C-alpha cells in the first residue's frame, strides 16, 4: 500500500495577489480616445486659467517691505501677514501677556497629540483633558498666581477659535449622550423631549441660535445673572454641537445589537448599569470616526461668531486688514486664515480616515 503524500501539492496552493494591470503609456492615457482628449484639454484649460492667480500669489507677491504703501503693485501683499501675524493669531490680548495664549495653544496641541493613539483612550485621558482645560482657562483669565487678570473681551484670535471648538464639543458631548439615549428610550416623555430638542436645534441655522444667545439670553435670565458675550456664544455653540453629536451617537446606539442588552438582563444587571457599562462604551467606540467629522464641522462653525462680534481669528484678520497704513489687504488676510483652518480641518480629517482603517482592521483594545 502506498502512502499518498498530499503535503507538497497543498503547500503550492498559496493566495497570490492578482497581477497588476499593465500601465498605460502617458500619451494613450491623455489622448487615447475622444473622451480622454476632451478631458485633457478642458482640465488643462482650467489649469491655465489658474496661472494669473499663481502669479498673484507667488511670482508677483511682495514678501517683505519697509513701506506698506508700495505693497499693492501687482501681486499679493504677504508682507502684511508677516507684519500683522501676532495680531491675527492673538487678537487684542495684551502683548506682554501673549505667552499665555501661546502656552494654551501649545497645551491644546500637546493634548491633541497625546489623544491620537487609541491605546491611551480611557478615563485617565478624560481627566487629563478636564485638568488641562482648567489650566488653559486659568492661563487665559489670570487673576491668580500673580497672573494679570485679562477679561474675556480682550481675548482674541486663534486661541478663542480653538477654545470655542474644544469647549463646545466637550460640554456638548454629555448632553448629546443623554439626548441620544432619550431619543432611543422606550418611554414616551423622554423620547418626545429629546426628539423635540434635537430636531428644533437641527432645523435652525447656527446664526439664528447665535442671535438667540447674544440678544435673547439676557432677557431670558434673571436680572442679576450676567453672562459675557463669549460665554453666551459658547452656550449657543454647545447647544448646536449637542444636537448634532446626539444624532451621531444615536447611530452608534443603533449599531449595538439587541443581544447585548438581553445578555445583560439575563445576567441580572439592572437597566441603567447595562446602558452605562455595556451599551454606551460600544456605541461610542463605533462612532469615533464620524465624531471627528462633527469636530471638523464645529471648528469651521466657530468662525460664525464673527457675526455676533466675538473676536475670533477671522474677526482679528478682518480688523487687521482695516489698518489704513496698508492698502486694504483683505484678500490676503482671508487666504491666510483659510490656510490655518484648512491645516486644522485637513489634519483632523486625515486622522479620522486613519482611525476608520484601524476600526476596519482590528478592535480598539
Amino acid at each position, binding site marked *: 500500500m502506498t502512502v499518498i503524500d498530499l503535503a507538497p501539492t497543498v503547500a503550492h496552493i498559496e493566495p497570490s495577489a492578482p497581477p497588476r494591470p499593465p500601465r498605460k503609456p502617458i500619451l494613450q*492615457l*491623455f489622448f487615447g480616445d475622444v473622451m*480622454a482628449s476632451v*478631458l*485633457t484639454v*478642458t*482640465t*488643462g484649460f*482650467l*489649469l491655465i486659467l489658474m496661472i494669473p492667480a499663481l502669479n498673484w500669489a507667488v511670482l508677483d507677491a511682495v514678501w517683505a517691505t519697509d513701506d506698506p504703501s508700495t505693497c499693492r503693485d501687482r501681486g499679493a501683499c504677504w508682507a502684511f501677514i508677516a507684519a500683522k501675524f501676532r495680531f491675527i493669531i492673538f487678537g487684542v490680548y495684551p502683548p506682554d501677556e501673549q505667552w499665555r495664549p501661546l502656552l494654551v495653544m501649545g497645551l491644546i496641541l500637546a493634548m491633541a497629540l497625546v489623544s491620537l493613539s487609541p491605546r491611551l483612550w480611557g478615563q485617565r485621558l478624560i481627566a487629563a483633558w478636564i485638568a488641562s482645560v482648567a489650566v488653559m482657562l486659568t492661563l487665559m483669565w489670570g487673576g491668580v498666581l500673580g497672573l494679570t487678570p485679562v477679561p474675556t473681551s480682550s481675548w482674541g484670535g486663534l486661541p478663542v477659535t480653538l477654545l470655542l471648538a474644544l469647549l463646545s464639543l466637550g460640554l456638548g458631548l454629555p448632553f448629546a449622550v443623554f439626548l441620544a439615549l432619550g431619543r432611543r428610550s422606550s*418611554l*414616551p*416623555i*423622554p423620547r418626545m*423631549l429629546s426628539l423635540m430638542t434635537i430636531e*428644533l436645534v*437641527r*432645523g*435652525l*441655522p*447656527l*446664526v*439664528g441660535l447665535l*442671535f*438667540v444667545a447674544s*440678544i*435673547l439670553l*439676557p*432677557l*431670558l*435670565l*434673571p*436680572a442679576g445673572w450676567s453672562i459675557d458675550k463669549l460665554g453666551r456664544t459658547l452656550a449657543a455653540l454647545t447647544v448646536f454641537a449637542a444636537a448634532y453629536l446626539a444624532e451621531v451617537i444615536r447611530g452608534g446606539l443603533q449599531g449595538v445589537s439587541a443581544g447585548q442588552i438581553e445578555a445583560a438582563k439575563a445576567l441580572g444587571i439592572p437597566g441603567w448599569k447595562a446602558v452605562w457599562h455595556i451599551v454606551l462604551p460600544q456605541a461610542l467606540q463605533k462612532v469615533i470616526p464620524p465624531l471627528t467629522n462633527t469636530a*471638523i464641522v464645529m471648528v*469651521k*462653525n466657530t*468662525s*460664525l461668531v*464673527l*457675526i455676533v462680534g466675538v473676536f475670533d481669528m*477671522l474677526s482679528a484678520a*478682518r480688523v487687521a*486688514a482695516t489698518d489704513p497704513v496698508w492698502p*486694504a489687504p*483683505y*484678500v490676503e*488676510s*482671508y*487666504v491666510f*486664515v*483659510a490656510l490655518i*483652518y*484648512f491645516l486644522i*480641518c*485637513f489634519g483632523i*480629517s486625515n486622522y479620522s480616515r486613519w482611525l476608520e482603517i484601524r476600526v476596519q482592521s482590528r478592535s480598539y483594545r
Partner: protein
Amino acid sequence: MISAVLDNRRFRSWGGQILLLGGFAALLLWLVNNTVTNLDARGIKVGFDFLWRQANFPISESVLPYNPSDTFLWAYVTGVGNTLAISVLAIFLSTALGLLVGLARRSKHPLTSGVAGVFVTTMRNMPLIVHLLFWYALATTALPAPREAYNPLPGVFLSLRGFYIPALELDATAWVVICLVIAVTWGAWRLRHHVFGTGRWHDRHPVLALSGLTAAVSLGAALLLQPDAVVSFPEMRGFNFTGGLRLSPEFAALMLGLVIYTSAFIGEIIRGGIDAVSIGQWEAGRAIGLSERHTLTKIIIPQALRIIIPPMTSQYLSTVKNTTLALAVGYPELGLVVGTVINQTGQAIESIGLLLGIFLTISIAVSLFMNWYNAHVALVEAR
C-alpha cells in the same frame, strides 16, 4: 405597602417621566417669568403690532418689489423672498457643479480626477464664511472701476460696482409661450408610444427626437403668438452701465462662495453614491450586452439615487440654513432684515421668533418633499 408601590416598575417609570416633564415645564415657566420681569423693567411691549408700521429702512436689492414706505411685515416677506431665491439658485447651481465634480473625481483620467480631488479637499476644509468674505473682498477691492471694467467674455463686465451680464427681457406673451412649449412637448413625449408605437426611431435616437420635437413646438408657438423677447447687453453710458442685468458684489460673492463650497460636498455625495453600487452591477450590465451609457443610466444611476438622496437632503437643508451667512457680506436675506428690524424697533423676541419659525417651516417642508421623493424612487421589494 408603600415600598411595594415604589418598587413597581410601571409606577417608577411613569413617576420618573412625570418628574421629567414637570422639570421641563418648570424650566420653561421660569424662563417666561424672567422674560416678563425683564421686559417690564425695560419698558418693552411685546406684540406684533409693529408689523403694520412703516419700515423706513432700505433693502438694497430684492426679488420682490420693496421700498422703505412699506410695512415691517412686507420687509420680512421681502427677506424671506430673497432667502428662498438664493437658496433655490444656490441648490440648483451647486447640484449641477457638484455633479461635474463628482463625475470628474470618478474619472479614469489622472489629471481630471486629481484636479477635482484637490478642489474638494481644499473647499470642504475651509469655513463657508471665509469663502464668502474672500469673494466679497475680491469683488470689492481687486476689480477695477466701471470705466475700466474687465470684459472676459463679450457682454460680460466685471467691475467694483458689480457684475454686468446680458439679460433676456421677456414680455408676458413670451412667458406664456415658454409654459406652453414645456407643457406640449412633455405631453407629446409621454404620448409618443400611443401614437407611433414603441421601438421606432424616436426610441433609438431619443435626444435627437426630443430636441426636434421641442424645436418644432417652439417654432409653431412663436409664429402663432409672436412673443417679444430681446436680449439686452450692458453698455457703458456715462459713468455706469445701462442695460443687461446687474449682479451686486454682495450677490455675486454670496453665490460664488455658496456654490463652490456646497458643490464640493455634493460632489462627494454623488461620487460616494455611485461608488457604493457594487461593481457586479457594472459587470452584469456588460454581460447582458448593454452599452456603457445604458449601464450607467438604466442600472447604476437608479440604484445610486437611493443611496444619494438621504445625504443630499441634509446637504440641501444645510444650504438653506447656510444662506443666513449672507449677512456677513451684507446681502439682504432674512437674517439681515431681522437684524435691521431689531435695531430699528427693539422687538427682538418677535423678530427672532419669526426668524426661527420661518427656518423651521422651510426645514420641515424640504424634508417632507425629499422624503416623498425618496419614497418615490425607493426599492419596491417583492415580498
